[in-house]
């Protein structure tokens, strides 16, 4: 085993050298700025390196997709962001985009085409699952084998885009003990952060949504809550803190679980 520093390839640098990567790895704002979620992005970048994937990130040229603005009703701002990004993608001849954030995935896949931005958009879960099924990504440790894991479906992968089985297929290869919450797959309960709620106080009610969901996750007695979305991670990690469970129960992203199993 040898530990080495790795460089994350940046699109502008590659282009300056006349190279063109196969994939654009879309980091997203949470990946770039949220300290907890940066760890998820680091884990996924390691997996990309491990798999020898030809990829690059936009780095400083990345900007918000416009999703939070759009769902909060600011169509004008969304379209300004989108049309500018489509221009950047055109400049770098982007054809395939891998995203980790489900909100970015959804907007690229379903909404950019209306503005002329048509790409092959791949969720990191689809990408990881495909590589596992093709035998390229092999997990030969069983560090997670006996740990019970529950998976929280993000609305924008699940209901919005019907991605339910890939995360489960991955998790079943990592652990022999995948347990489901009462509301799962298309019945999943939102973490409470979608539609712009991430950035604002909730309206008056008698409970926070993220607490309702955290309680449901705790009822499974799982030791790990696996998430696949930066917003869900913020909400459920907060929920664990609120319930004073953050030391006993971990909230980890599927990319982190894989990187951990691969001992990257």
């Amino acid at each position, binding site marked *: *085993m040898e*530990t*080495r*520093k*790795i*460089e*994350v390839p940046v699109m502008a640098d590659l282009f300056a050298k006349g190279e063109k990567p196969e994939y654009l790895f879309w980091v997203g*704002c949470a990946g*770039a*700025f949220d300290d907890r979620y*940066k760890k998820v*992005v680091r884990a996924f*970048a*390691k997996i990309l390196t*491990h798999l020898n994937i030809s990829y690059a*990130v936009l780095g*400083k*040229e*990345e900007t*918000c997709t*416009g999703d*939070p*603005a759009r*769902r*909060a*009703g*600011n*169509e*004008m*701002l969304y*379209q*300004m962001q989108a*049309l*500018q990004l489509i221009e950047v993608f055109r400049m770098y001849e982007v054809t395939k985009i891998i995203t980790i954030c489900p909100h970015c995935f*959804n907007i690229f896949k*379903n*909404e950019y085409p*209306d503005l002329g931005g048509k790409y092959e958009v791949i969720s990191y879960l689809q990408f990881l699952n495909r590589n596992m099924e093709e035998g390229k990504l092999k997990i030969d440790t069983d560090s997670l084998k006996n740990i019970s894991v529950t998976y929280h479906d993000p*609305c924008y992968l699940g*209901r*919005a*885009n019907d991605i339910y089985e890939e995360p489960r297929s991955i998790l079943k290869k990592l652990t022999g003990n995948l347990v489901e919450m009462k509301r799962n797959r*298309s*019945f999943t*309960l939102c973490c*409470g952060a*979608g*539609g*712009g709620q991430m*950035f*604002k*106080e*909730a*309206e008056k*009610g*008698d409970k926070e*949504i993220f607490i*309702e969901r955290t309680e449901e996750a705790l009822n499974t007695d799982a030791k790990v809550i696996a998430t696949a979305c930066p917003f869900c991670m913020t909400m459920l990690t907060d929920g664990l803190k609120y319930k004073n469970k953050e030391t006993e129960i971990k909230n980890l992203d599927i990319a982190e679980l894989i990187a951990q199993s691969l*001992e*990257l």
Partner: protein
Amino acid sequence: MVKQIVFAITLLVTIGIFSYTVKRIVSFFKFTRPAFPIKDFGKRISIMLTVAFGQTKIFRKPVLGFFHALVFWGFCVILFGSLEMVIDGLTGSERVLRFLGPVYNIIIASGDLFALLVAISIIIFLSRRLFFHIKRFEGTEMKRRSHTDANISLSFILLLMVSLLAMNAGYIGYQTITEEPIYGIYPIGTLLFNLLPDLSAGGFRLLYEGSWWTHILGIFLFANYLPYSKHFHVFMSVPNVFLSRLEPLGKLPNMDSITREVKLMLDPATAFAAQPSDAPVERFGVKDAEDASWKNYFDSLACTECGRCTSVCPANITGKKLSPRKVMMDLRARMKEKGPLMVKNGRDFSDNRSLLRDYISEEEIWACTTCNACAKECPVNINQPTLIVDIRRYLVMEEASAPGELKAVFSNIENNGAPWQYSAEERLSWARDLEMNFK
């Protein structure tokens, strides 16, 4: 002959009133905005077969779903008998479609059997509403009127089923005593005939004729009650499913009018080349009923207030004011209020009220997480989130109104390309000193 004339007159009156109602509703559709073009007929037929006729989404609640499916399938089969009754009524014939032979026997036998199954299901539904406290049937939008409406609709169906079974029993009795041939097979009718006390031929004839008239007049009355009831879904749900939005639930419709403006902003050179549009300046988003699309309005007419949407709404579950069912009911109610005024005074008429604020509050609109649980759950493919976002579009783009934190998000995205206040220069900080193990 008298019977035929009476029947023809009642039928004409029924059709007359019904056409008047439908014409009124259609005239309201003229005020709505375009939605999506209707194409992909193959896909639409397949959705109609699975979601509407296969009742797939109703089965998301399997036990009650099963009873509803019985009612729906029963309705489809029994409809055949009702058509025969109309022909019989007009021509003075009896069981005119019997020439279909074995097919006739099968359909009539199923109708007879289903009449009992539907009646049982309806009794279950009615008892749930009358004797149990079901959370799904409660909520601020569920006024006494809604409950009465539901109970009237269910009682109507029960009456139709009981009269159908009584009619069949009377028919069997009369034909048996007068030694006339029985057309069709009636498992439940025969059973009931055996359970009934011995009546004379005349007695059975009276039961048969009386039930026949009760049943058919019940249908006529019910048909004209429905368009004024939440139970209009009997007519609207299958077409609504056929007209479903076919895109993934996560996709919001693009605002092309905004695209034109943004393109002008990004490339001023095209501003000179652009043709001035003749179309009147349209309001961004939805403030009132006429700003909604025809599909939103269609959705609202297809809604039967079952509340499955609200029962899965994360905001509603946690005590917020938002209820997707209420949003649909409000649109329908507002169109009912404003539609006639617009028919009289034109689309631009204002009564100084609007869907937003007089019916739906901003607090409700801002509580939505756009998680699409409501749309996923709706048995007739109503799409609530697109309407909610359209109301947000009005608030933000016409009134510059939004919760303060969201305004901050807008300005952050505008100024530094992220919802948070970080500089783009920091976007690669996660990649600094990234180390990994190689085997």
